[in-house]
């Protein structure tokens, strides 16, 4: 059973990619519908399996860890697999309607979409440093391809910049992997952890961890390495922006977090942890501030991503040399933040796409009067905003609440200030959009009405982000499940 589920996660997305490459857009859409159904069922199946039996290591090709590639299937991984299934299928369904099927190059959207999905699954489950590198490249190149798809000069500029940043990030990561392999003679994360448990930490590979985390931070767009993100996320088509902001940047963060939790205690340092946390805090403030100053709707949402990504990096100081319970609280808070941001931001980008479609302009001041005509998409946008502003009962609130407790519990009260400032600033940039859309504008009363399915999808995502606060206990309980050290059940 597990075998089939793993096959379904790692290989079927690749098969969908091949199938959709061979067909045109309309058939690709049909294949994608089937594919989405299968992937959601498989992801749910694996989640249930892990929820019942606990996590396990899975050896690919039947070769054990140092020689072959092992996958780590634990509660966190399956939570993210399920999140990917939810967000990616929403974006896929939205894209099927949103994207113009008459442009011949749009047929390539589907294979890139499926390659992206398979890369994401490979990263969530990866337990091998080099395999994670290949997975990251798979994600980056397909994301760049999606941004550039049929684009004009601006989109190409954004995608070239994105590509260069992603490549530099990957190289830094690979350099770290090379040093790790030189020191420990293995590529398996679990193998390195086992070695570190039995020996005192050597001096050399500290740089390896620093390099890997710096490279991944560049790919996650941590301040001050964030400059590539707003152009790329702002200019891509809305379903693509949603995918990029909700999932792609999370993949590199996920690896960084995994590495930090595995090697941080032995190879990291307090200064490094505080430094990363500081950059995260600066990202929250600076990203929100820039979001307030943008004139384009999607640029606001993109800069909001820069800010929200900043919260994630508070994981580093909040898990370094603190008590077990505080560390767990911080990890849970960050996980909730990832999930709620993914859902809310995907909802927001899709809703923003609908708004832009209906007013025919991407400027914020063009939204004047839209509140009378398109309340549904605007409502989704607002609901997603509730989660970003971390008001109760949203998932964003539950996440920040846990982070607040963790920062107070570890005596690092200064992060609480970041949390507060971030909440207020996000309210500022979101209310700017609401205000613009509620402004009365008697001159423009011609709005294009997007189809109902386009409007429902962001709504569902926004409601999920909002409702996450109610089910956070259940979501987090899967994360804390015991981990069966010996192979698959």
């Amino acid at each position, binding site marked *: 059973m597990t075998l089939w589920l793993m096959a379904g996660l790692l290989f079927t997305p690749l098969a969908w990619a091949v199938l959709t490459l061979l067909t045109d857009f309309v058939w690709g859409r049909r294949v994608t519908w089937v594919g989405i159904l299968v992937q959601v069922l498989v992801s749910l199946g694996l989640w249930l399996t892990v929820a019942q039996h606990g996590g396990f290591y899975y050896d690919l090709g039947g070769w054990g860890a140092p020689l072959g590639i092992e996958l780590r299937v634990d509660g966190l991984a399956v939570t993210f697999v399920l999140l990917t299934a939810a967000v990616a299928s929403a974006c896929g369904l939205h894209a099927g309607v949103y994207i113009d099927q008459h442009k011949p190059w749009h047929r390539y959207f589907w294979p890139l979409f499926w390659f992206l999905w398979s890369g994401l699954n490979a990263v969530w489950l990866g337990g091998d440093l*080099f395999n994670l590198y*290949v997975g990251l*490249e798979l994600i980056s*190149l397909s994301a*760049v*391809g999606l941004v*550039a798809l049929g684009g*004009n*000069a*601006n989109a*190409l*500029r954004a*995608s*070239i*910049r994105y*590509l*260069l*940043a992603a*490549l*530099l990030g990957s*190289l830094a990561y*690979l*350099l770290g*992997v*090379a*040093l790790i*392999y*030189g020191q420990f*003679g293995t*590529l398996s994360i679990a193998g390195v952890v086992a070695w570190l448990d039995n020996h005192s930490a050597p001096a050399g590979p500290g740089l390896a961890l620093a390099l890997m985390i710096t490279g991944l931070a*560049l790919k996650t767009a941590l301040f001050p*390495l964030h*400059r*590539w993100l707003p*152009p790329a996320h702002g200019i891509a088509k809305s379903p693509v922006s949603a995918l990029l902001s909700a999932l792609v940047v999370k993949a590199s963060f996920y690896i960084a977090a995994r590495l930090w939790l595995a090697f941080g205690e032995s190879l990291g340092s307090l200064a490094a942890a505080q430094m990363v946390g500081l950059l995260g805090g600066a990202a929250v403030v600076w990203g929100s501030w820039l979001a307030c100053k943008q004139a384009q709707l999607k640029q606001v949402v993109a800069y909001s991503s820069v800010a929200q990504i900043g919260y994630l990096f508070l994981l580093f100081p909040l898990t370094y040399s603190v008590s077990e319970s505080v560390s767990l609280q911080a990890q849970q808070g960050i996980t909730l933040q990832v999930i709620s941001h993914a859902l809310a931001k995907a909802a927001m980008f899709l809703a923003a796409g609908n708004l832009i479609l209906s007013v025919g302009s991407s400027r914020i001041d063009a939204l004047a009067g839209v509140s009378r005509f398109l309340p549904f998409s605007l409502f989704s946008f607002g609901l997603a905003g509730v989660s970003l502003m971390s008001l109760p009962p949203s998932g964003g609130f539950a996440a920040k609440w846990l982070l607040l407790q963790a920062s107070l519990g570890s005596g690092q009260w200064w992060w609480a200030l970041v949390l507060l400032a971030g909440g207020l600033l996000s309210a500022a940039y979101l209310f700017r959009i609401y205000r613009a859309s509620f402004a009365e504008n008697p001159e423009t009363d011609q709005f294009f009405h997007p189809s109902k399915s386009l409007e429902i999808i962001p709504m569902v995502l926004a409601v999920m982000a909002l409702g996450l606060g109610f089910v956070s206990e259940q979501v987090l309980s899967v994360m804390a499940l015991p981990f069966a050290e010996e192979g698959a059940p």
Partner: protein
Amino acid sequence: MTSYLLYALAGAALCGIGLFGLLRLSHLLRKLLAFNIMGSGVFLIMVGLPQHQSGPDPVPQALVLTGIVVAIAATALAVVLIRRYYHQSGMTSLEGEAGSREGGPL
């Protein structure tokens, strides 16, 4: 010290040169050259360092082969994007355009 280690150290220097080029050069094709040089440096470290300790080791060699193929894929994609970008905008660098007020090399 073995000659393997010498190559690993040369790889470190190549990484530095490549990084400088990637950050400082503005022409996109030059950035691409710099990326490839930095990549070569990383590959040298990847093979040289473990081989210094335990002799010829096929595992990192296989990894580097994979890495080279990934690098050529990325390079080829970048060339296509750059040429298309040049075709549409007549520019070969990312700088000096409107709309990126806080633009930088990355």
